[in-house]
């Protein structure tokens, strides 16, 4: 619905901020027109708010009060990076590290730029004209968060995996925020996985010790997986403080592509994980899952659109969240089956476990189906910890605190099990256990 609204403080400040920093942003003259165009698009649509159906439960007009200045470069030692990664440091792989949204050559793996795998920082690719700020997603036009991302983006990973290449070592895109000044970052990854290629890409968002508690992150990942490609794609957000994390995944699948996605979120004040998957060829398989942990007054929103535009594709989604204190979890999942997408097989499940009386879970699992020979289903449940299970554990001599932790772990474990990389699964399990220890219901 179009409702005339007065611009908020942040909405007014953002274009002014853009004018101030526009000349300093990477890509120079080559990227400038796209940035300006994105900015004017943002100025026209403004921050999303409750009257826009997709943003019904997450109102950025109220939660993004200030326009924070883009973050500046900050030095970070290898030890400090390991400390910031915490349990995630154990995940082996080649790293592309961004500190405050700026590429750190020192902390990153040296990639051989020719051959099967090409990895480059977006800042360089923009300057050389190798990358542009367009997106493969169809709806970038009305997506204010993506528009902001395109306008302010400082860096990101440009990854291209050659046809038939099998990259066994996971690629870790590590984003660390550091420094004491309130800051905003905008990063964008552009990933191309060629025909019959294999790759594992893990995005990490962590915070260095002593960093400001006031930060805004805007991250976008465009990923195009070619015919017959096999892609594992994970995003882990483990932050703390008054932090907002706005992310968009734009996923395009080819014929027979197998794509396994996972998103883990904890510690952010306001999170919006937008996921947009479009099928471009038949027989593709998607498994998109996620887990989120929220406490205090945290707000975690996952909004997923799976667009079955072609026949014979499969999609599976499982999202699980644990909500404590006054926190709020949101899941909006939409499966679209287009008129010709016969033999589609789609299943979606969203579940929340509430640990505190004031927690809230809002769920909107949507189906929009135009083809008749399909199997689609969705489910959504919300409940507190089962008293009977607690009693059972306690009757076996397990103290209430441990019993509760066990039950929560088994609940969230069902989602974490979707992760096949053992070190990553262990790291997220240990993050979950630490979170439980620190959380008072």
């Amino acid at each position, binding site marked *: 619905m179009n409702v005339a609204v007065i611009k908020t403080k942040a909405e007014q400040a953002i274009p002014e901020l853009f004018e101030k920093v526009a000349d300093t942003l990477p890509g120079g003259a080559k990227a400038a027109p796209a940035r300006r165009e994105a900015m004017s698009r943002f100025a026209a649509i403004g921050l999303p708010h409750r009257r826009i159906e997709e943003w019904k439960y997450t109102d950025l007009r109220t939660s993004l009060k200030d326009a924070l200045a883009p973050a500046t470069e900050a030095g970070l030692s290898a030890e400090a990076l390991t400390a910031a990664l915490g349990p995630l440091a154990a995940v082996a792989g080649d790293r592309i590290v961004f500190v405050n949204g700026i590429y750190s050559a020192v902390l990153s793996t040296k990639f051989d730029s020719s051959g099967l795998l090409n990895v480059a920082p977006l800042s360089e690719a923009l300057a050389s004209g190798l990358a542009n700020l367009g997106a493969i997603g169809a709806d970038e036009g009305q997506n204010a968060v993506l528009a902001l991302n395109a306008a302010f983006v400082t860096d990101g990973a440009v990854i291209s995996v050659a046809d038939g290449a099998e990259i066994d070592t996971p690629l870790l895109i590590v984003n660390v925020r550091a420094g004491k000044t309130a800051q905003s970052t905008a990063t964008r990854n552009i990933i191309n996985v060629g025909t019959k290629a294999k790759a594992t890409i893990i995005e990490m968002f962590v915070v260095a010790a002593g960093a400001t508690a006031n930060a805004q992150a805007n991250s976008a990942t465009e990923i195009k997986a070619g015919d017959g490609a096999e892609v594992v794609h994970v995003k882990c957000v483990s932050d703390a403080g008054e932090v907002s994390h706005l992310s968009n995944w734009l996923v395009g699948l080819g014929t027979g592509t197998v794509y396994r996605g996972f998103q883990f979120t904890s510690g952010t004040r306001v999170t919006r994980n937008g996921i947009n998957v479009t099928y471009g060829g038949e027989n593709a398989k998607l498994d998109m899952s996620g887990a989120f942990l929220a406490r205090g007054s945290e707000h975690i929103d996952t909004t997923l659109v799976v667009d079955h535009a072609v026949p014979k594709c499969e999609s599976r989604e499982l999202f699980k969240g644990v909500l404590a204190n006054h926190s709020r979890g949101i899941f909006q999942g939409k499966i679209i089956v287009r008129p010709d997408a016969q033999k589609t097989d789609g299943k979606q499940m969203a579940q929340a476990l509430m640990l505190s009386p004031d927690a809230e879970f809002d769920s909107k699992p949507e189906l929009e189906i135009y083809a*008749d020979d399909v199997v689609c289903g969705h489910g959504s449940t919300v409940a507190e910890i089962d008293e009977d299970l607690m009693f059972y554990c306690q009757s076996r001599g397990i103290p209430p605190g441990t019993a509760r932790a066990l039950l929560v772990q088994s609940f969230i474990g069902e989602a974490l099990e979707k992760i096949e990389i053992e070190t990553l699964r262990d790291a997220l399990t240990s993050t979950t256990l630490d979170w439980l220890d620190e959380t008072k219901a």
Partner: protein
Amino acid sequence: MAAVQETIDQVRKIDVDQYKYGFETDIESVKAPRGLDESTVRYISARKGEPEWMLEWRLDSYQRWRTMKEPTWAKVHYPKIDFENLYYYSAPKSTEGPKSLEDVDPELLATYAKLGIPLKEQEILAGVQGARVAVDAVFDSVSVVTTFKKELAKAGVIFCSISEALREHPELVRKYLGTVVPQSDNFYAALNSAVFSDGSFVYIPPGVRCPMELSTYFRINEKNTGQFERTLIIADKGSYVSYLEGCTAPTRDENQLHAAVVELVALDDAEIKYSTVQNWYPGDKNGKGGIYNFVTKRGDCRGHNSKISWTQVETGSAITWKYPSCILRGDNSRGEFYSIAVSNGYQQVDSGTKMIHLGKNTSSRIISKGIAAGYSQNTYRGLVSAHKKATGARNFTNCDSLLIGDKCGAHTVPYIEAKNMTAHFEHEATTSKISDDMLFYCQQRGLSAEEAIAVVVNGFVRDVLQQLPMEFMAETQKLIGISLEGSVG
């Protein structure tokens, strides 16, 4: 899995070009001047001889409506309605004067007889002792007759048109009108509040179990007329009532507007069962004509241990925009919604329910089956919410839909909002609900896999249909055969 032939045939039988109730009654009528302004509202109120407060209430609603915009969020598309080009009041001329059965125009009686609604107070209907139904027949804007009034009065039940209730029982109407659906609840409710012309009023006194089924039969006859009826049902403490509603309209090329408001109030320990068979003219096979059915129905479980149950079988209307809801205010109150919506031709259905859990230990159940064929769009839209203080809220939702043909669409838009830790909400919309155990049982008794599915699914659909009172079974019989295997969430 695609739909089986039997289902396809059954749906075809009720396709839009098979509409049986499309005839027109040639009867002289009195109309309000075309268009809508304050004078129209005053005209309607004056014709009904309403008290001053009612006129003010209407005018207030009209002013509020003027400031509101038509809702656009539903998944329905239609040309803009010209509200200035409608007649807001039309009554058969012969209904002026006393309304006893003997005085009703025989032409009207014949119309209802043709529709299969007997307005004679038969002692025995269809040979079944006790299966009697009191009918309030609404023709265009007015109630033409209400049967069995005397007998109901003996039990203390008030069943009459809302116009009559405004004259005879103004204190009751004033106490409850607009308390469930406020004047400015939504665009169409506000319009209805300003110009509603008639409808039924039911009051069941404390502790009374209504001795017979009550029903209203709505008929739109006049051209270019909007029908705006208002139904108010109050079940006082410990009472029970079952209410049926049916509707049809003539076959016409232009679209007609029907914007009704139904308010139900259930006090402590009371129960209301509200069933609808909606069969408005759906338009022809090219999507021309048909009724725009924009209805606000809401029940308020105001008392503790109260219960409201909505059952609907929707086969008609060009556009349906209807969400019979329950506000579960009283502790331990219960809301139910059973729905079968079949869309054919170019019909568009956007229907569902809202279960608002406010009291403690409230429970609700939603079973919705949507069947889309032809070029139709069938959407289930529902809200289940538990507010902060609604401890122990329970909901189970199951909504399945089935598509026949690849030109139609079936959509599910459920909203689940839990603001209380103790809420247990389950929503599911799957095809795998038929348990393997049941199928195995049927198959080991010699049924083929398909027959087994048909048996199980038919049994399941019958469960929903059996929520309807027996008198409506005839109308829904043709739907019973529809099996829902191959359905998608």
